[in-house]
């Protein structure tokens, strides 16, 4: 059982962590949910604010229908119930970056109901995480607390930006599962194009609900860690918070239901100072907005336009290309990566292509901090390079070198691998005569090693290495191997 691994030890025995996530995903819209102001990141303070966003007297919300479409699209991607009738409610509370004194959200009747996604865990295990709901709501503005000794500053550029709040069931049992969940959710959103998933810019952030219990016990009291904005921090926050709760209980204390903040500097969570007992949001249907209604045709049309999603793509990669689940999982992480692979693999040995894409392309991009769209080596070139290995023009080792040369030269050079092989004289030597000479030389120069090799046939590898070195790596390794064995009088078993 995978869950056993997730238990964490305390002084009084093992504990289980129970996690549920509320992810706020910014809809990839150009205008806000209820106003025509822009959503672009990084604008001058208060420059993307309409009178509606600033809650001037008499201002009224008008819904951006594109955002409704994106919520439905996301709901379909989460294989969830789509509610053709939903209601916008007001969530009432006071905060300086909440201009209306309420957030327009959906409470009792959200646009999307229950669904599920599958997460991929490191050991190849797949686990289903339930989705409780998805609803549309407005983002708040931004408060800056560190600009002035006794003032906070408010920028309303984000005020009114459309968010999809995606609420999971409390189905996760470890930080790794929570992280895998966010990664998978982000992949789905990106595939769908409904959210750019950019966590640094706040387009995707998670409220993490953490509780602990002894295995088999009732659910413990949970704490909600607000607005955690990186996958790494989600892991840290959970580890810290679970340990804090366990220590607290084991020291005879009780966990208080709280809203907490994660401090990336210290890696700790702390209780927010706002008074919890005052929270009574007084939800009620927003009288400025009629119920959100759409036809089944509207939903069906969106359903027809859905792309292939990560899980389906992964299954296809395993079935059609014969990839391992791990490689397939890595390749489908981003739609662009998968597409790159498919172009490169067209008509070729897909496993070899997958190896090169994962081992060379992704590694290179990672190191250079480049997006796949900016890859200096095109998918077609990767394919050509694999072809050069397949027809014995270059060895795998040389291919790596060729790849690096192409990568360094960048996309402007546009040199195909065959050109580079030609220019640099990297063509593999398959001429047996030339290789034979090199083998003879090495054998002649190392009589002691020859004796050893005849005792321990594994030593043959050493000769192969020497020959490869002597030929500048251009000799065909299979041919070298065969000749070395022959000359040493070893069986080619």
């Amino acid at each position, binding site marked *: 059982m995978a869950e056993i691994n997730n238990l964490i030890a305390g002084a009084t025995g093992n504990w289980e962590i129970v996690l549920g996530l509320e992810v706020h995903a910014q809809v990839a819209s150009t205008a806000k949910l209820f106003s025509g102001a822009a959503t672009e990141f990084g604008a001058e303070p208060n420059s993307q604010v309409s009178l509606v966003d600033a809650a001037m007297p008499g201002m009224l919300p*008008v819904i951006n229908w594109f955002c409704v479409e994106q919520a439905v699209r996301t709901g379909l991607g989460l294989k969830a119930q789509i509610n053709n009738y939903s209601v916008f409610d007001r969530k009432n509370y006071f905060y300086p970056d909440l201009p209306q*004194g309420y957030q327009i959200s959906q409470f009792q009747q959200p646009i999307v109901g229950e669904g599920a996604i599958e997460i991929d865990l490191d050991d190849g295990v797949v686990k289903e995480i339930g989705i409780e709901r998805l609803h549309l709501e407005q983002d708040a503005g931004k408060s800056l607390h560190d600009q002035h000794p006794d003032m906070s500053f408010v920028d309303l550029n984000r005020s009114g930006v459309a968010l999809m709040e995606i609420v999971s069931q409390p189905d996760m049992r470890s930080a790794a599962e929570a992280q895998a969940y966010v990664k998978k959710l982000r992949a789905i959103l990106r595939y769908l194009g409904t959210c750019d998933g950019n966590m640094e810019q706040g387009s995707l952030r998670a409220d993490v609900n953490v509780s602990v219990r002894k295995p088999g016990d009732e659910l413990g009291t949970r704490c909600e860690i607000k607005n955690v904005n990186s996958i790494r921090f989600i892991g840290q926050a959970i580890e810290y918070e679970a340990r804090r709760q366990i220590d607290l209980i084991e020291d005879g204390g009780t966990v208080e239901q709280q809203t907490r903040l994660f401090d990336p500097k210290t890696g700790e969570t702390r209780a927010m100072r706002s008074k919890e007992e005052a929270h009574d949001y007084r939800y009620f249907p927003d*009288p*400025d907005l009629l119920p959100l209604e759409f036809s089944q045709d509207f939903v069906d049309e969106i359903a027809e336009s859905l792309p292939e999603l990560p899980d389906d793509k992964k299954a296809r990669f395993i079935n059609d290309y014969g990839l391992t689940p791990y490689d397939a999982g890595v390749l489908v992480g981003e739609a662009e990566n998968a597409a790159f692979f498919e172009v490169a693999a067209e008509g070729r040995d897909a496993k070899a292509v997958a190896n090169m894409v994962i081992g060379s392309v992704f590694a290179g991009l990672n190191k250079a901090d480049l997006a796949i769209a900016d890859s200096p080596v095109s998918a077609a070139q990767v394919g050509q390079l694999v072809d050069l290995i397949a027809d014995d023009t270059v060895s795998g080792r040389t291919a790596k070198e060729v790849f690096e040369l192409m990568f360094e030269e960048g996309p402007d050079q546009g040199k195909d691998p065959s050109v580079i092989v030609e220019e640099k004289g990297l063509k593999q030597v398959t001429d047996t005569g030339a290789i034979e000479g090199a083998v003879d030389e090495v054998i002649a120069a190392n009589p002691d090693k020859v004796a050893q090799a005849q005792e321990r046939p594994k030593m043959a590898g050493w000769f192969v290495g020497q020959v490869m070195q002597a030929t500048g790596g251009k000799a065909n390794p299979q041919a070298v191997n065969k000749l070395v064995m022959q000359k040493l009088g070893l069986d080619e078993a």
Partner: protein
Amino acid sequence: MADLTELNLAEARDGLAKKEFSAVELAEAHMTRVSASSALNAYVLATPEKAMEMAAESDKKIASGEARPLEGLPIGVKDLFCTKGVRTTACSNILGDFIPPYESTVTQNLWNDGAVMLGKLNNDEFAMGSSNETSRFGAVVNPWKANGTELVPGGSSGGSSAAVAARLGIAATATDTGGSIRQPAAFTGTVGLKPTYGRCSRWGIVAFASSLDQAGPITQTVRDAAMMLTSMASFDKRDTTSVERDVPDYEAALTGDIKGLRVGIPQEYRVDNMPAEIEKLWQQGIDWLKAAGAEIVDVSLPHTKYALPAYYIIAPAEASSNLARYDGVRYGARQDGVDIDDMYAQTRAAGFGDEVKRRVMIGTYALSAGYYDAYYVKALQVRRLIAEDFTKAYEVCDVLLTPTTPSAAFPIGKNVEDPLEMYLNDVFTVTVNLAGLPGISIPAGLDADGLPLGLQLIGKAFGEEELLRAAQVLEEAAGFDAQPQDWWSA
């Protein structure tokens, strides 16, 4: 030249068209009267420069033959309508000296049609009240007096009703959430029209209760009301509760012919302790309409008595949320506090008057955990029953006739100590808001003290043409031509 302030809207329009006087002269005549009327406290801000500028522009349009429907007609604007560059306060301290960088749709429509703005009119703070005594600028005094006593002009559009009654503007904009156009019209001998919910855009009007608020005119005559509504009404993409329907020429609907019109008389409006005079007036109204060829039908609106209690949950609940934006952060009068929550609490304590606080607190309570179903949801269920009462009644009639108010105007200060007594003023008007229907109050007679009394006609949703047609017949039959004695001009 006759006193230009004696003219109604249609007369002034015709006089301007015939060039008997200029728009500037017309505006000046009214501005002069406005500036001498401080005893009434109807205006909270006069805008003479703006009036003169707009009137001069109107004269140009008239001269060039480009007169628009309300060209050069001077009107007052309730301080609930946001007016670009002109202080707008909803008569609440909390808005401080708020200057909107925008113009409400309704007033913009009026200016687009050539109307001239005289200034901003007093109202109950955030339109919460039935006497115009809760304004930050103090009470409005009714131009009508009984035995020398100063009376309220009704509320919340008391500045609008007083101004029209005292000829401080030929017409005025107003808003009606539970009777705030019709009740003050009844108290001042003027015509007050509350259109169907969604007929006029709410964009740019300070919200009280979003699902009930509706703008409309207060005027001297039914024809004037029709002229005003034709301009004020529009489909507005910025208010998704405004309705996508063409605006008819309401004046053209005033044919004077109501033969065969079925007029329903709801028996439940015969309340206990109804003054005999009102009972009598109501009967007179029935007779007038019958004489004009209407068919009188008895109908039942069984849930009428629950309208007021339902209203006093729904309106405060919405208001408690609508008024949350007045927090001293982005506009309005801020009070210092030791921290942010204290700043809010001090700002709202100092900024809101007692009646607003009461309603915000009732609304907060009704929406809070544990009370939501018992109060808020219950009130919304009752609201549906009330709306269905009307639907059923309209199966057998076309319009309804009722008194507008259970009494004539009362003395200033009389009901201030007793909010509940004050709320009862809306007993005949509030059902209309809950059901979203149009209603109009017509001055129909005087009581024993010589004070005006109103009759109310209620129409079907978007049945304003039929409603106005019937109202004009009633107006004609009543022949109400009394005017308050001018005691206030300084």
